[in-house]
């Protein structure tokens, strides 16, 4: 139980690491999807390019949208962006920070897919085999009576009969794959370089502001989680009390149970301590319309970021005095 608690605490404190984990899982899914996908070039001049470029670019769009969907920050970002002003000012820098971090994470899986297609080369061969000038290669099968472009369009398909005894197909494939891999590696190098430069130079600009925006974006995330948690606890206590009240309203005895100071209060289901805690957890919200009002206000008019009143509540201290004014007992 302790270990579970530790794990939960870790995850709760570190929502960034959850996002990173999800990001990596999506990339692995993208790799697996590519390897299990049966690439099927049509080998027809009018459809080759369309198919290949479709396979290269449509799955990245899907993966990007998926990445945005499963990212927790999307919800936080949209809520913060769209909410009415209320009593809390809006900080556009926080919104921008959330947006950029969400986009960075969501772009990883699409990039992985695109790089895989480029490094593998099948898409490129399918799309651009018709643009290769065949005069650089020997062994072109010109006895079939087909047009040149149709022959070139059939290059991606290994099993076609016209290429049975010639090395022409393999030579053209190798050539186009070369190009594909070169482009793939250059893109990878470019992005790594960009990332490195960005990381290294970031502290040079507005680091203090960056620390602030990072803190407040993390705060918004945690605040939303805690609100959901508090709602869950509240619903639980509400439900329990509602059910108990319902049972008690069916009492057959005509007894009047009067409220009592906590010292003499009869314990019903739980002992005093827990019952007081439960009362506390209800926070005085005990009616349907109160809960509705609470949720409406939470959205429309978020409270200001100032918990001084709660954190430094003045404590009532009691002093017992006898008739002469002499202090017998004091909590001060």
């Amino acid at each position, binding site marked *: 139980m302790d270990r579970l608690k530790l794990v939960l605490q870790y995850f709760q404190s570190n929502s960034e690491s959850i996002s990173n984990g999800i990001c990596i899982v999506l990339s692995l899914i993208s790799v697996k999807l590519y390897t299990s996908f049966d690439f099927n070039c049509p080998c027809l001049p009018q459809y080759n390019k369309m198919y290949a470029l479709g396979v290269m670019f449509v799955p990245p769009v899907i993966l990007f949208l998926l990445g*945005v969907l499963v990212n927790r920050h999307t919800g936080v970002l949209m809520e913060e962006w769209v909410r009415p002003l209320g009593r809390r000012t809006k900080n556009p820098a926080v919104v921008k920070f959330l947006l950029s971090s969400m986009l960075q994470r969501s772009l990883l899986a699409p990039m992985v897919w695109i790089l895989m297609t480029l490094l593998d080369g099948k898409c490129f061969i399918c799309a651009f085999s018709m643009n290769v000038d065949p005069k650089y290669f020997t062994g072109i099968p010109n006895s079939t009576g087909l047009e040149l472009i149709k022959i070139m369009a059939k290059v991606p398909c290994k099993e076609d009969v016209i290429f049975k005894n010639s090395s022409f197909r393999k030579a053209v494939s190798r050539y186009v794959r070369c190009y594909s891999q070169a482009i793939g590696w250059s893109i990878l190098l470019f992005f790594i370089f960009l990332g490195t430069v960005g990381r290294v130079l970031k502290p040079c600009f507005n680091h203090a502001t960056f620390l602030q925006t990072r803190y407040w974006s993390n705060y918004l995330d945690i605040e939303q989680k805690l609100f959901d948690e508090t709602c869950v606890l509240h619903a639980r206590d509400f439900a329990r009390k509602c059910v108990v009240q319902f049972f008690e309203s069916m009492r057959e005895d005509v007894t009047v149970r*009067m409220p009592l100071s906590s010292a003499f209060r009869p314990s019903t289901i739980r002992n005093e301590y827990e019952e007081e805690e439960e009362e506390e957890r209800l926070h005085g919200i005990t009616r349907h319309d109160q809960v509705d009002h609470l949720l409406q206000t939470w959205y429309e008019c978020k409270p200001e970021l100032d918990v001084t009143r709660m954190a430094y509540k003045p404590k009532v201290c009691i002093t017992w005095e006898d008739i002469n004014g002499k202090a017998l007992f004091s909590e001060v």
Partner: protein
Amino acid sequence: MDKFRMMAQILQSNQESFMNGICGVMALASAQLYTSFEFNCPCIPEYNYSYGISMLVIPPIWFFLLGFVLNNNVSMLAEEWKRPVGQRRKDPAVMRYMCVSISQRSLIAPAVWISVTLMDGKSFLCAYSMDLDMSEFDKNVSGHGLSQEELLRTLAKIPCNNIYDGQHILSREAATRYINCISQAFGWLFLLIITITAFLIRAIRPCFTQAAFLKTKYWSHYVDTERKMFDETCTEHAKSFAKICIKQYFEGISGEIQPFHDHSHDDSDEDDKPATEEDKLMGVRRQDTMNKVLWDWHTCKPPLSLKKIGDANTGQNGDCSMNPNKNEDQNICDKTDLNEGQNGFKCGYVNPGLDIGQSDSGKGHENASFSIEQNGFTNRRSNASLSQNGFVNGGVFSPCNTHRKAWAVYYSKV
């Protein structure tokens, strides 16, 4: 508090992650079922299309219904939909939300099946091989002297590798590739459409109706929690009911009456006393009462409005009455009786700051202990519980300001 937070986390995450887990398991099951299923195109013109399309469409329907069956929330939704209005009005938005969330989860496994089928291409090939347009391959249809029927029959054999006999008319691999291409294009399109729809629903939704969404989410979760709490409470009640019932039965036979909670009270700590069985009954002691409880729970749910414990405005000032059927000493006490003029009364107050300059009463502390010797009553200390024979409620003494939460209840154990 930490324990409760962790519990809440587990509860909340468990409920959702449990449903998500089932979702994921069904999606994997759907993919696995597809790979292990032996697709068997009939290669006959009359049946190809039906077989191909039914392989594409019927298993998703089956998975969708299975998702509904496995989802616990379906019965909750049906209950909420069908219950009479009673004291609690119905919120159609909550029911819509529950319906939508159940449907969303059930739609994942069918979507996986459809996309895997389209990506693989076999069912598309089977269904549409006869609709192949030969001009795509620049083949001259009439050049081979085949009638329309024979051509169709030849084309229908394309999905079957070992019986295809039209290689001289049309290369089987070229046709297969072409149709697979189209099938995969449809597959990716399908995935794109559902991803865009999901994105619009989840990412753009906060722009509209966010406050209403928070409300419906809370209340749908509340309905679920309340149902669980009710079942828990019923179980506890049934246990206590059964215990007391059996005990009474034995007593009825043996003719003796045992005091019910001798051993549990006398030496246990004040603050740590376990709830007695009588308490757990909450006053519901007969079969027909319990039946009424269960009946009314469905036909007339209570309003969503809790009464505060210790609310002094409930008009119970100074009133007391006794349990009419169970008590041996029928003493009605009212305000005037329990003045400070009587011996040995002490009172406890909720608000310790109250001025308690009363001559005969002792000082009021929250933890005051007291005893009364009056009319044979023996008072218990704090947390006196209901005895089997009922209890006597003491009234409030007049000097106390009736507006304050200053009540004292005296219990007796007869």
